[in-house]
């Protein structure tokens, strides 16, 4: 009978202690850095070390575990590490940071969102819309309506409409209708607004 039971050799645990892990984080082996990054998440002082490494880490798997760890750890310190990355030139750092922020409890970010939605950088405002998607419908609607009312960048407007089309409430209808006129000559935006209005109206009717 080829089937056997044996005593198990556990998977190697990473080195312990902040110093050993700091050294491992600088290893030329991506697997060693991967292990070290995972272990550092739960250690005091670990998150700061990881944040420093994130910008220079080229391996996507190592970056991924750092992002996951920060997301799971879900502390303001971790969020503070991720937020600046929304401005990064590197698309994968931006999207990794966004994903990690979106995986944190929505309540953690609720306080930071208004600020992000007022950021001078339109790309940051655009990414912040994605974070609003995780909020309760009323809060998300309020924030998106507020942004849409004052926003000048078409791509950011498009992002607000995308969120409203998914979770927008009836309070969004007036601003959407105003913007339908404003963007009548922008084919995609006109299309998106029409869809959002239709979906919100259908949900409204269904609720009656």
């Amino acid at each position, binding site marked *: 009978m080829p089937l056997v039971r044996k005593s198990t050799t556990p998977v190697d645990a990473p080195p312990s202690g902040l110093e050993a892990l700091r050294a491992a984080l600088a290893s030329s082996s991506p697997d060693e850095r991967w292990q070290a990054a995972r272990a550092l998440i739960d250690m005091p002082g670990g998150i700061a070390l990881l944040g420093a490494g994130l910008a220079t880490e080229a391996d996507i798997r190592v970056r991924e575990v750092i992002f996951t760890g920060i997301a799971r750890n879900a502390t303001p310190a971790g969020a503070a590490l991720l937020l600046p990355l929304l401005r990064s030139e590197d*698309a*994968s750092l931006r999207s990794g940071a966004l*994903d990690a922020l979106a995986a944190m409890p929505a309540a953690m970010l609720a306080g930071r969102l208004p600020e992000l939605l007022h950021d001078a950088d339109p790309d940051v405002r655009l990414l912040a819309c994605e974070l609003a998607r995780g909020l309760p419908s009323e809060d998300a609607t309020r924030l998106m309506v507020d942004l849409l009312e004052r926003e000048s960048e078409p*791509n950011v407007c498009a992002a607000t409409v995308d969120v409203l089309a998914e979770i927008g409430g009836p309070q969004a209808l007036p601003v959407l209708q105003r913007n339908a006129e404003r963007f009548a000559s922008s084919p995609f935006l006109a299309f998106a607004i029409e869809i959002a209005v239709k979906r919100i109206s259908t949900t409204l009717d269904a609720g009656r």
Partner: protein
Amino acid sequence: MADVMGKRILVIDDASLIRLYYRQALESAGFHVDEALNGLEAIEKLLLEPVDLVIVDVNMPRMDGMTFLKTLRRQGSPIAAIPALVTSTEAAPQDLDAARAAGANFYLVKPLAQDVLVQYARLMCAVSA
């Protein structure tokens, strides 16, 4: 429409309304359209069924557009050679170069007008005008 019959396009973009917008335009022009939200999902779909063209956005979660392209170009035949139209909100020259280096055939700033999209789709699927 006979000349696009059977031509398949995969639209890869995180934004559902963008995908819907492109889908409407491309389906009206006679293409068969499938969608993916991120580069990883796209690779899986392509492994199951190759297409004649991918339209891929740069900014996506899990696997961004450039990484997707590089991964695609490393796969075996036939999917490695699928033509790719990259879309982005960025328009700087270095982004164009980066896209080309990653394996893009064309790079356009979004959102695309529907007629421009169809024009490029017909061109890149080698469909006679």
